[in-house]
Structure formats: C-alpha cells, structure tokens
C-alpha cells in the first residue's frame, strides 16, 4: 500500500506547523498563519479536524504545553511534524514540481 494521499488543506497545515516550529505551532497560530499568507478565511474547526486526521496518519504528534494566563490558565496543544509528515510534504512538493515542469512560460516559475 502506498503512502496516504495528502489533501491541499492538510499540506497547508503541515507547512504552517513546520514554519511555526514545535514551540509555537498550535491550532490558533496555524489558522492565523494560513490566513495571513494565503489571504483565505480559515475556520478553526477545520484546523482541529485536519490535525486529527494528520495525527491518525502519523504525520504530526501533539502534546500539551505549559498553562498560560492569556488563555485563562489553559495550555496549548502544540503540534510537531513527524519525519513521515516531512516526507509527505516533500513528496507533495515533488509532485507539484514535476507537474509544473515545462509550464513556466505560461504560469511563471515555481520558486
């Protein structure tokens, strides 16, 4: 059986988690990051659902951080992308790159 298929939103969540790093990646910051960079509105409920799915695929692990006063004394559930998760992102990027090849004159270069 091949590796599980990666969805577009899953890819965005993984990329945001990688960028934020294991100390700062949690549902709120991931949603903010995607919103900021892509300009599209992101529902936090979708981030939760996607994180759950990614956890099921073994692409991320979550753990509770320290309690914080600005959160009413509650902890963040921090997201760490696993090695499989990184591999899945790379594989997706390879796929896109391969499909992009030869289309630079029409779509611009993929940097």
């Amino acid at each position, binding site marked *: 059986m091949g590796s599980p298929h990666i969805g577009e939103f899953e890819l965005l969540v993984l990329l945001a988690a990688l960028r934020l790093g294991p100390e700062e990646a*949690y*549902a*709120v910051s991931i949603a903010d990051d995607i919103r900021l960079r892509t300009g599209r509105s992101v*529902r*936090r*409920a*979708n981030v*939760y*659902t996607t994180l*759950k799915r990614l956890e099921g695929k073994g692409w991320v692990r979550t753990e*509770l951080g320290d309690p*914080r006063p*600005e*959160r*009413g004394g*509650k*902890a*963040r*559930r921090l997201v760490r992308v696993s090695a499989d998760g990184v591999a899945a992102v790379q594989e997706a990027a390879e796929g896109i790159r391969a499909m992009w090849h030869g289309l630079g004159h029409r779509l611009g270069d993929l940097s």
Partner: protein
Amino acid sequence: MTAPRWARRLLARAVDPSEVDDRLGDLEEVHRRRVGRHGAGVAALLTGLDATGVAAAAVGGRLAHRVREARPGGVEMRLALRLLGRTPVLSAAAVAALTVGIGLATTGFTVVNAALHPAFPFPAGSRYVDVAAAHADTRDAVAPDADLVAAWREEAAGVEHLGRYRGGAANAAWNPGEVERIAALEIEPASLAALGFAPALGRLPTSDDARAGSAPVVVLGDGLWRRRFGADPGVVGRTVEVAGVVRRVVGVLGPEAVAPAPADVWLPLPEAAMDGVRLFGVLTPGADPETVAAGLATRARGPEGAALRVDVRRPGAGPEGRAAGGLAVALLLGLLTVLAGNVGSLVAARTAARASELAVRSALGASRSRLVGQLVAEVGVLVAGATVLGVGASRWVTAAFVASEGDELPIWMDLSLDLRVAAFVALAAGAVTLVAGVWPALAATGRRGPGGLRGGAAPGRGHGPLVVAQVAVAVAVLGCAAMVHRGWAGGLAARNPDVPVDRLVVAELTLPPDTPWPPAALLRGLDGAAGVEAATLATHVPGTDARRGPVQLEGSAGDGPVVARIEVLPGYFSAVLAEPLAGRVFSDDDARSGAPPVAVVDRAFVEAHLGGGNAVGRRLRWAGSMPGSDEPGPWLEIVGVVPDLGVAGADPASTGAVYRPLDATADPRLIVRTAAAPRVPPGPAIRAALYDVDPAVGVQSVRVLGDALDARRRVYRWMGSLATGAGLLVLALAVLATYALLAFEVTRRTREVGVRVALGASAGAVLRPILARTAWRLAAGAALGTALGALLLALVRATLVMRFPATGTATFPVLAGVVAVAGVLAAWVPARRALAVHPMEALRTE
C-alpha cells in the same frame, strides 16, 4: 473579558474530554483578541458562533466515525444473521407477521395516495378541475347554460378555460345486427384544444361542426380506434352510426385524451344543449380552486337572480374520501403496530433468554449502545426481509387488481410506486423496527445493565397481562372471522334460486324518457332473435339483493316486517320458469292503470308472516314509505304465492319478498331466457334486436345469471378466507408468543425447580404452581376474548348486515379450548425439561 459561558459549556460538552482544556484555551485566546479588535459585544457573538462551529464539527466527526464502525457487514450484521439461523421458527413467524402487516399497510397507502393525488396523464392534467354551480340557499344544482358560462368566461380570474360537456353512453351500430354500447362524450370543440389534446389523425371538431344543421361528425378515441378499426390510418373520412345518426369520422385523438372522461367517441356538443351538461375548467398555473370558486360565485347570478354557490374541485377524493382514506390507513397502521408489538414480545422473550450472553459482553466492555445496536440489528434484518416480501406482495396484488379491474378505476388513479409510497414504506419499516426492536433491546439492557450474571428477574415481569391480552385478541378475532365466513357461506347456500340460471341472461337497461309504457313493444323486438324463448323486465333479478322496506299486513298494528320489494312485468314468473304455488301470477290487466292493486308474495313471506296459512285474498301495504309521501300506500290484495327466488338478501331482519307490477318510474333490468345455455353472453344480438325497435335504448352489463351469481360467490368466499386467514395468523402468533413467554419464565426458574427437587419435592408439587398460573392466565384470556368477540360480532352484524348460523356461538368456547391446550403444552414442555435436569446442573445454570 472571558468567552461567553454558554459557548464554553457548549464546547466542553461537545468535544472529547481529553481535548476540552486546550480547545477552551484556544477559544479564550481568540476571544480576547476579538474583544480588543471589535469590542465585547461583537466578540461575544463571534466567539459564540466560533464555539458552535467547533462543537458541530466535533459531534459530526464522532457520528461519522460511528457510522463507519457500524457499517452493514460489520460484526452486528453477522451476529444477527447467525441468530436468525438458530431460531428459524421464531424468525419465520416474525417475518410472516410483519410481511402481512407491511403488505396491507403499503397496499392501503398506495390506494389512498392515488386517490388523494390524482394524476391525469396530460400536460394540463394537474390544473384540471370540475366546476359545479348550485343555489346558495337550496343547494339545488344550477344547469350551466351558455349565458352563465359566457358571463364567467368574460370575467373569471384564475381560470384559463371553462368548457361544457355531456358524458354518457351511446349505441354504435357497426353492421346490421352488431350494436355496441360505447362511451360517448359531447364536448365544446374549443375545449379539446384548451386541454392540450392534438389529433393523432385528421382534425379536431370545429365550432362550425357544433352548429345546428351542420353535417354530423365524430372524432374517435384511441381505444376504440385500435379495438374496432385495428389502428387503421385510413379511418378518417369513413362513416359510422353513433346514437342513431350516421357521422363522418374527421379525426382520431391520442391516448392522452382522457378528460373530462375517457371516451370511445368525441362528438361536438350542440350549442343549445342544456340537459345533463356539466362544466370543467383549466386553472391558470398557481390558481387555487377555492379562490376561483369564490370569484365565480360573485360574478354571476342563477335563475331569478339567486345567489350561486360554486364548487371548483380537482378530481380525486373529496373531504369525506380523505377522511375515510385516512381512517383506513390509520387502521392498517394500528394492525401493523399490533403485529410489531407481538413480534416485539417474541423478541423480548428471546432476548431475555440471552441475558447471560449480554451480561458477559457487557462485562467484557461492550457499551449499552453497542448491545442495543446489536439487538436492533437483529430485528432490523427481520424487518428488512418482511419489508421486501410485504412490498413485493403489495405490488403483485395491486398489479393483479389493475389487470383485472383497471377499467373500473378512475382514469386519474395512478397505483404505481411513487416517492410518497416509498417514503411511507421506509417510515413504516423504521417504526416497526422501533416498536419490535428498540423497546425489547432497551428493556433487556436496562440502566441496571443486563442481569444475567446476577440471575436478575426483570425481563419476566409484566408477561402475565401480555399472555392474557394475546389469548383474548386471538380468540376474539378468529372467532369473529370464522363466524363471518360461515355467515356468508350460509347466506349464499340459502340463495340458490330454483330457476334455470344458466339459461337466463340479465342486463341493465337504459330506456329513453319517451318509451311507451308498458314497454311490451320493445320486448317484442326480441321475439325473433335467435335462441330467445322469453324476455321480461324486473327491478331485481333472481338471486340478488332487492330493495327492502317494511310492509303492513291488514289486521296487524304498527310497522310490519321488513321484506324485499320487487316490481316485475306480468310475464316475469313464466319467463324465469317459476310456477305459482298458490293462486295466480300477474296478468296484463293487473299492469293497466286503474286496475285494482294486487301483489304476489313468496313462500318465505307466507311462512314467516302468515304462519304458513292461506295467503291469497289477504291484504298488505307499504308501511309509510311511499316515495314522496309519508302516507301508507294503497292496500294490495295478495293474488298468488311463488317460490323463493333468493331476492330477500342476507339481512337477518328481512324475510320474504313481495312482488308488484312494474311501475314506469322504476329502473328495470332485462331478463332473457334462452333455449340453451349460451357459451358467451349474447349482448350484441340483444342490442341489435332492441336497436331495431328504438336506437336510443341502452343495454349494458349483459351476463349469464349463473356466471354473475358465481362471481358474487367468489368474492364472498375470498373475503371470508381473507378474514379467517387474518384470524389464523393472529392465533398462530398468540400461541407462539404464549409459548415463548411461558418457556422463558419456566427456564428462568430452572434453578428454583432444581433446588426444590433436590429438597425432595415431587414433580407434581413443583409443576402445579407454574401450570396453575398459566391456566389462570389462559382462562382469563379466553373469557376476555369471548366477551370481546361478542362485542366485535355485534359490530360486524350492524355494519355488514348478515345472517349468522344459530350454532355459531359455539365457536368461541371451541377456540378458547384450542388456545388453552396450546398454552398448557407451552408451559408443560419446558417445565418437564426443567424437571429432567439434575439438581446440581440446575444450580449451575446461572
């Protein structure tokens, strides 16, 4: 500053406990940001929406997970199928009962659905309405004359078209000696186009064709064109003789032309036509019939300026029909519920016997919902099987009915399986699963959990009344069904008229209003017809129910007995070969106006009301129910006595028959005696013979009397079998449920039996209390059932009007005995089994 409390609570309830904390933290963090950006009020609103979204996603995710887990083919289904194999008798009984229930309910709903949602098979069909006008005060119908229709056409809102038509039957003379009675519809030419009917061949009639003095034309209906002309495309231009007039065929209509009524021929309605003319309309899209009716009522006045009451109605069942249909479906659903309840008690007994299994599964960690799901899946398999069989049977019966009686159905009745019927079946199946599956499952896995390991006794409670009710219903229903069956059989046996039924041909007759009376000249037309020995007229033919009413015998006070009242032509008795037993039959003189009023009675009348004595010379009269008068009729002298001709019907209150000479106001039936038994009813020959005398005479429903009586007998026999079959089903279910409940109860007491036997109790001493209690319940059930049955029977007697055999009352005790024997056996078999168990084994069973 914190997120709204309700939002936090909602979230805390909806998400998984392990995730509540961090989700609440996220909510709190986001909320504080929102407060800074939008202010507290807007932030509270946004956070509330936010929390609702997160909660919905969490619940949805869990549900989806459960559905994936419980997919068909899962462990529940496999267990369910295995269990069905282990208890085949119980499963078969449950499926049979539910099949009958679902099949009947589906059939009933299909018919009611078709009646409530008429579907005319042409484009304007959904906007077709019948229109009728009446005096607002007297409610007398107002004929829709041309003036009224013209006034409405000018101003009516919501009506696209108003058309006048006149429907009826007419004679078509195809060849000399071949006359057929066909459906003829006279309609305004413009209406055909307004209904959207286009000619399949030729043209439609025009308004010129409807003018007085124009050459008569006819348009053929699709059915007649195929049946009579073999779908010949060259039929246009030929001539046919319809209603005594030779007409040129100008066109053929397609099969969609079925409104205002299906017809064999379409004729242009003469402009001046008034008698029997009716109105129909095509509403504009979206128009409401009631609003249109109110509008029409204000726009015109009736004769002499009277206010009008206008009725605009879509075809299909009226309010009364709707009520009756609803009641019928409710009754069938009631029956289905009873059957589902029965199956539920069977399932409950079976489930209770599996208390240990459920307890073990529960102890191993199966949740209550999982156990309930398992038990419901088992019943679901039964219900699914019964639904497939029931709906299949219903479709089969419906198709058979349409094939044999489809011509009798209104054209707008569509008995196919549509979305509404499918939704009904799905809902019914769901409800049955709920009644038969969910309740026993919840009971078996109650809040205290399955009691199997504790030897819990909960499932046994309440079974006493259940057994009593089962037995009572079985005795009552089956007893009633048997009595009804025997009543019909007895009634039919008593009604074999001693006349040559195979040589008597009967028909309904439509006489034109100007027929000279008595219509002897008309019958003489049959004299020369091949094979005809005699012909006569009567209001009722031998062997069929006649109109009944009270008569008063001279010398006795008050309203007398209720008897059959029949009017006949003088030659009637000799025509049906019934010789007078005493006195004489009618002569031609008796039928003349001004002749002394006389009557002939039958033997049953003499025996019931005159003590078998001499009847000739006695006098009687109709008791206060002459048409149009409260006065009693004139005294009639009895001039003769004839044999019973089976016209008194099955009404137990009615005995004997009184014959009078045929009145001109009566609606007679034609009776023809042939020399030999005809193989097919000689309708064409009879029609042709009468056509030569008067082309307007209508002869319908020509049948050999023997065949007609046989057909009636078949219907009665079929209805009787159906009633008995339903009763037997209830009885079988009741016996099975009794057995299951008692067997369960005895099995549950195996431990007690074992202990008592170990302590030295005799078999009799141990069994006595169990059997005694069973006997009490059976006795109570039988007594209740007999009382209930008597009540039901009185109801049936009142509604069906029938005689019952005098010995029939013995049915109830006999049935009660049968149920009692079955019940005692049901207790005895498991009790013996419990006794045979070794005491040590009995102690180990639970």
